[in-house]
């Protein structure tokens, strides 16, 4: 038998992406088939429908949307924390045997993990937010602007991306999944509840949530831009540092 999979020359760009996409697809397939995903989506749909129906008489679009979006920060973040912080560490035992001993580079693997977990978070968030907005628009009192609504949704999406990158980053750095989850829980809830107390509002998802009704109504301040910049910087730093660490470490 002769080799049919090419020579030792440098891989082309398309070929290099092959391993990346294979890991992204396999990871997403595993995530969307997990019971955690079904449980999350069912529970979130149930809570959204109940809370929107109970707001029919006195609720407005801004309050219902803000309340639904804040659930992602306080409640559904737990699902994201669990899945992001276990992304790499849970595969530690099989990583060398089943993936890294193949034609895969360190960056292929770690960037694929970031991509798949971010995609998973955003797909789940988009589906639930579409339902939330659809329900909220059926209310009688509309106090939103389209730009404000879009801004609020994008801000929460960015916050969840930050949480996911922190989770994957800790999963790369920590020696086991439990430690990574505990570290992320401590970090996330410190950012959410403790940062506003010490005046770090710009880096706090909790402060963002309290501003959501105004953002949905169309109010956008310089401080919101600073929040965006802060979250983007944290996401970028987490991705870059943990990728560099994964590149250096022994598997």
């Amino acid at each position, binding site marked *: 038998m002769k080799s049919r999979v090419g020579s030792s020359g440098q891989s082309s760009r398309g070929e290099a992406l092959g391993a990346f996409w294979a890991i992204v697809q396999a990871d997403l397939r595993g995530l969307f088939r997990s019971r955690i995903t079904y449980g999350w989506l069912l529970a979130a749909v149930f809570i959204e429908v109940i809370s929107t129906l109970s707001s029919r008489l006195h609720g407005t679009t801004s309050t219902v949307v803000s309340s639904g979006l804040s659930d992602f920060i306080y409640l559904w973040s737990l699902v994201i924390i669990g899945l992001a912080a276990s992304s790499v560490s849970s595969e530690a035992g099989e990583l060398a045997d089943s993936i890294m001993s193949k034609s895969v580079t*360190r960056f292929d693997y770690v960037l694929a993990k970031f991509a798949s977990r971010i995609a998973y978070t955003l797909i789940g968030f988009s589906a639930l937010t579409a339902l939330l907005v659809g329900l909220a628009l059926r209310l009688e009192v509309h106090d939103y602007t389209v730009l404000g609504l879009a801004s609020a949704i994008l801000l929460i999406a960015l916050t969840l991306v930050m949480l996911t990158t922190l989770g994957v980053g800790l999963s790369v750095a920590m020696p086991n999944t439990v430690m990574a989850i505990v570290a992320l829980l401590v970090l996330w809830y410190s950012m959410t509840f403790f940062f506003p107390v010490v005046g770090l509002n710009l880096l706090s998802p909790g402060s963002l949530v309290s501003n959501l009704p105004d953002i949905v109504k169309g109010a956008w301040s310089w401080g919101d831009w600073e929040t965006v910049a802060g979250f983007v910087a944290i996401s970028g730093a987490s991705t870059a540092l943990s990728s560099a660490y994964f590149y250096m470490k022994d598997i």
Partner: protein
Amino acid sequence: MGQRVIEMENLTKVFGEKLIAVNNVNFAVEKGAIFGFLGPNGAGKTTTIRLLLGLIRPTAGEVRVFGEKMTPESSNLRRRMGYLPTNPRFPSKMTPITYLDFAGKLFHMRKEERMKRLSSLIRSVGLLGDSSREIAGFSTGMITRLGLAAALMNDPELLIFDEPTSGLDPAGRKSTLELIAELGKEKTIFVSSHILSDIDRICTDVGVIGEGKGIFSGSIKDMKKRTRSRVVRLELEGDVAKLCEALKASQWVVGFETRGGFEVDVTFGPEMPMAEAVREVTNLVSRLGLDLISVSSSTSSIEDAFIGLLRDEESRGFLRAV
């Protein structure tokens, strides 16, 4: 000298500035060889293999595979290699079909090519009936067979097997060794083991590692020759004491040892050819009127050769220390 597929040059790996797992190892494997990598448990075999695959970085020295330096980013080199780890672990929720398809994608194989290859491999390793079952419920033997299929998925030029017969029953062990011997006809194979008879049976060349240090590299024949113990073992009936007296007086005997009153190991000096030594000792037995039940030479045992090498290295290490 043939084309070298693997070259290790002063290869060293120190974990956490505490444990020297691999210490200045130099081995070379030529194209087409079945290279047995021997060493006791904890000698550094798996660490060397991980260095060879670029899964860990050397502290000093380097590994070259197909003439190029191996690093964690050398995906182009791993594309030409197949690896079967000891007790391999695979994603438990996948099935043999989904895992082999995934492995094929990681080797950048086209869909048509992947499907063709995985269906033939699943059949070859006897997993056809379980091809759609989750790996989670597989036995050790089934996982090893799946690992073998995954190692062959990309039709590699170089195969690396880390203790391939570990945990297998005698039938599985036999078929695995036969398969390695068969694959060795067209591929270069690097196989680690501490089961000496396995290595003796299938390998053309051998490298021995002990406490992280490379202590021998060459053909199996050379290894046995180098550590030739020149011992003839006799099993006798009669007055063994009489033979012992005669051996004491003999010029060509270096030493002897009796066991259980009926077995005698006679050690000869290096100047005496083995055939002549056997003739001399059997003549002596005959002259003394003893019954010879059996006679054997232990020069052909790879176990003795291996233990001899480890013992030599230990004493050399002690001498270096003092």
